[in-house]
C-alpha cells in the first residue's frame, strides 16, 4: 500500500488553517504558518481555488474558504425540491408522449417514486408517489444502476428477483445492460417487471453532474414499442425532459 500523498496532506493543512481563527490569510502567512515554500503553497491554493474550496479576495489577494465546502456538506438534493423543479417538464413529457411519467430516486435497495404524472386520458389512475420499484428490471432502476455506484452495490447485497421471463437476473448481463445504458444515454425495460408494460428512462443530474434521479415514461408495450423495440420518438422525448430538468437543477448544457 502506498504512503500518504504529500500534496493532499498539505492541501488539508491549508484548509484547516483557513478554517481556524483568522478568516482571511495572505499567501506569505499561509506558507510561513505551514513551513511551505511560497511556490508550493501557491500551487496548492490555486488548485483548491479552481475546485471552489478556496476563494481569493480580489482586492486584498487574501484567501478564505470557498462556498463549495459548504455545499459538500449538503450535496444531497431534497426530493421535494426535485419534484418542484421537474413538475412542468414531467407534465409536458406526459402530454407529448401520452404515457405515464415517473420520477424516481435511489432509496435503500430500490427506486422510490417521488413524482407521478397521470397518463393524459382521464382514466382512473392512482397516485403512486411513495411506492417502490425494483432496480434491475425497470427503466428508472437501470438508469440509477448505470450511473450510481451505490445503486450497483445494492445488487450485490440483494440478489435480483425474477418477475417475468424477460427479467435479467444474472449480474454480468445486468452490468452489460448498464454499460449500454451509459453509452446510449437512456434505458429501456420491456416487460421485465410487469407483463404488457414497457418503460424508457433517462438520467437527471445536478449542477455537479452527479446522478440525482431518473425520469421515465411507462405504458402499454403496444404503444411504447414498435416491432419489439421502443419507439425512437419516445426516447427523444424522455431524454429532452431529463435534460430540461437537469438544466433547471443547474447542470451545464450537454
Amino acid at each position, binding site marked *: 500500500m502506498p504512503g500518504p500523498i504529500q500534496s493532499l496532506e498539505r492541501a488539508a493543512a491549508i484548509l484547516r488553517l483557513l478554517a481556524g481563527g483568522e478568516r482571511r490569510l495572505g499567501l506569505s502567512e499561509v506558507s510561513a504558518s505551514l513551513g511551505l515554500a511560497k511556490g508550493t503553497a501557491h500551487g496548492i491554493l490555486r488548485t483548491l481555488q479552481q475546485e471552489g474550496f478556496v476563494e481569493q479576495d480580489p482586492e486584498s489577494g487574501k484567501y478564505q474558504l470557498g462556498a463549495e465546502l459548504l455545499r459538500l456538506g449538503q450535496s444531497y438534493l*431534497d*426530493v*421535494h*425540491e426535485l*419534484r*418542484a423543479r421537474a*413538475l*412542468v417538464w414531467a*407534465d409536458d413529457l*406526459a*402530454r407529448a408522449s401520452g404515457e405515464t411519467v415517473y420520477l424516481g430516486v435511489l432509496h435503500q435497495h430500490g427506486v422510490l417514486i417521488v*413524482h*407521478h*404524472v*397521470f397518463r*393524459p*386520458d*382521464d382514466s382512473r*389512475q*392512482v*397516485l403512486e*408517489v411513495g411506492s417502490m420499484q425494483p432496480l434491475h428490471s425497470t427503466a428508472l432502476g437501470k438508469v440509477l444502476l448505470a450511473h450510481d455506484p451505490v445503486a450497483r452495490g445494492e445488487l450485490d447485497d440483494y440478489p435480483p428477483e425474477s418477475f417475468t421471463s424477460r427479467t435479467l437476473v444474472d449480474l454480468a448481463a445486468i452490468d452489460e445492460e448498464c454499460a449500454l445504458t451509459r453509452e446510449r444515454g437512456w434505458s429501456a425495460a420491456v416487460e421485465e417487471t410487469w407483463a404488457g408494460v414497457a418503460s424508457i428512462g433517462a438520467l437527471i443530474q445536478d449542477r455537479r453532474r452527479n446522478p440525482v434521479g431518473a425520469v421515465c415514461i411507462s405504458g402499454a408495450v403496444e404503444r411504447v414499442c414498435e416491432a419489439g423495440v421502443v419507439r425512437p420518438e419516445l426516447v427523444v422525448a424522455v431524454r429532452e425532459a431529463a435534460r430540461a430538468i437537469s438544466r433547471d437543477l443547474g447542470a451545464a448544457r450537454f
Partner: protein
Amino acid sequence: MTTLSNGGQYIAAIDQGTTSSRCIIFGADGRIVAVDQQEHSQIFPQPGWVEHDGAEIWTRVQSVVAGALEKADLTKADIRAIGITNQRETTILWDRHTGEPVHNALVWQDTRTEALCKELGRNVGQDRFRRETGLPLASYFAGPKIRWLLDNVDGLRERAEAGDILFGTMDSWVIWNLTGGVNGGVHVTDVTNASRTMLMNLATLEWDAKILESMGVPASVLPEIRSSAEVYGHAVGVLEGVPVASALGDQQAALFGQTCFDKGEAKSTYGTGTFLLLNTGEKAVNSYHGLLTTVGYRIGNEKPVYALEGSIAVTGSLVQWFRDQLGIISTAAEIETLANTVQDNGGAYIVPAFSGLFAPYWRSDARGVITGLTRYVTKGHLARAVLEATAWQTREVVDAMAKDSGVTLTALKVDGGMTSNNLLMQNIADVLDAPVERPFVAETTALGAAYAAGLAVGFWPDLDTLRANWHRAAEWTPRMDEATRDREYKNWLKAVERTMGWIEEDQPSA
C-alpha cells in the same frame, strides 16, 4: 385596415400580473407554445402604499408580446385572437388626449383608502354597498381608489368632469393602448373586472348611479362594461389587425382555465395566498359567511355566470415565514421532507392570523398562534402544522361556500406553486373529504384568457371542446377516517378561537 378573422392557429394571452407581465401563446389543444415574461417596478412611496408605473407596464406588455412571438417563431398572421387577464382592482387614470397616466396606478394591495372606506361606510359600516356589489368596503377595490386620486391629484376632478380623464383597471389600460390609444383606442372593461370596482351593480351589470354619487366618481371616466368574451377591437402594432377578444380578472380567468363551467365546480389557486372560487351558476349568491360575490365570467350575450370567492391571506407565505423568519428549512420544498419525518402534528396547531383573520371570520383583532405545544413536539410536527393550516383554512372557506350556496363540493381543482407539495394536496383531500385534482396546464390563468378569446372568434366552438382539453395530471383521494377528521377539525377551530381578541384597542369589525 383590420380583418375580422384570419387563419391563425394560435391564441395569445397577455397576463398583466402584480409583479410581472407575461405573454403566453397557446395551440388548439391548450398546450403552451411560447412564454415571455418581464417584471416591472414595485413602487412604495410610504408604508402601506403600493404603486405601478402605467407607462412602464404598457412598455413591458408590448415587449413580452413581441418576445413570445419571436420565441414561437410566429407572426401576427398566426395569431387568431388576443386575450387579456390581469391583476384585479389595480386602478389607473389617464388623459384621453395624450394617453399619459395622471398618477401611478394604485395597486390592489395599497391600503391608503382604508380611512376613506370607513368614512364611506357612514353609519352602516363596511356592508353599505354589499347588496348591490357583493363586496364589503375594503381598501382593495377600485372605486375608493378612483375617489382618492380625484381628491389628491391637483385639478384632476375638474379635468375628469370635463371628460378629459379615463379610468381603467389594468385590462382597460392594456386594451385601450393595444387598440390604438389616443388614435381610436377602445375604452372598455369586462364584467369580472367591473365587479371588483364596487361601482357595478351585480344584478344589472351596469354602473350603479347611486353608488357613483355616494363615492363621488363621475360617470364620464368609466369604461363601457362588456362581456368577458367578445371582440372589443383590433390590435395595432406588432399584432396589427388581430382581434382583442377577451378580458378576465386573474382569479376568474383561472376558474375559466380550469373549465369550471358548471354550477358547483370550484378551483383553488395555491400561492403565497390562496383564492378559492365556486361557480354558482346564473345566480348571484349573497354571502352571510364572509365571502365575496363576484361575476365569474360572461360569454358574449349569454347570461352571466356568478361566483363566490374566498381568499386566504396566508398559505404559501406561512411556509416562507417558516423558512425565512424561523430558518427551520432552507427551501420551501423542504417543508414536505421535514413534515414526512413524523406521522402527525403531535398535537400542535399553527393559525397564521398574521394580520387578522380573513374569510370567513374577518376579525382584525386576531393575531397568529402556535398552540398545543408540549415537550413532545418537534420541528417535524410544526412542519405538519404549517401544511395543515393551509388545508384547514381551505376547509373553512369551502364550508362557508356550502352554507351560502347550498352546494356541496364534489371535487376541488387546484393550481399554483404549492400543488407540487404532495403531502399538502393529500392533506387537503383528507380534510375536505373530497378528491383534489391537478390539471396538466399549470398556467390556468393565461389559459382562461386564451380560452375566452378563442371562443369569441370561433377558434374553439364551445365550452365542451374546452372541457375536453382539461386533463387530470394527478388526483389525491381522501384517506383520513371520519373520526380523525372530526377530532382534528375541532382542534383547529379551538386554535382559531385562541387567536381572537389579541389586539385590544381594535374593535372586531362585523
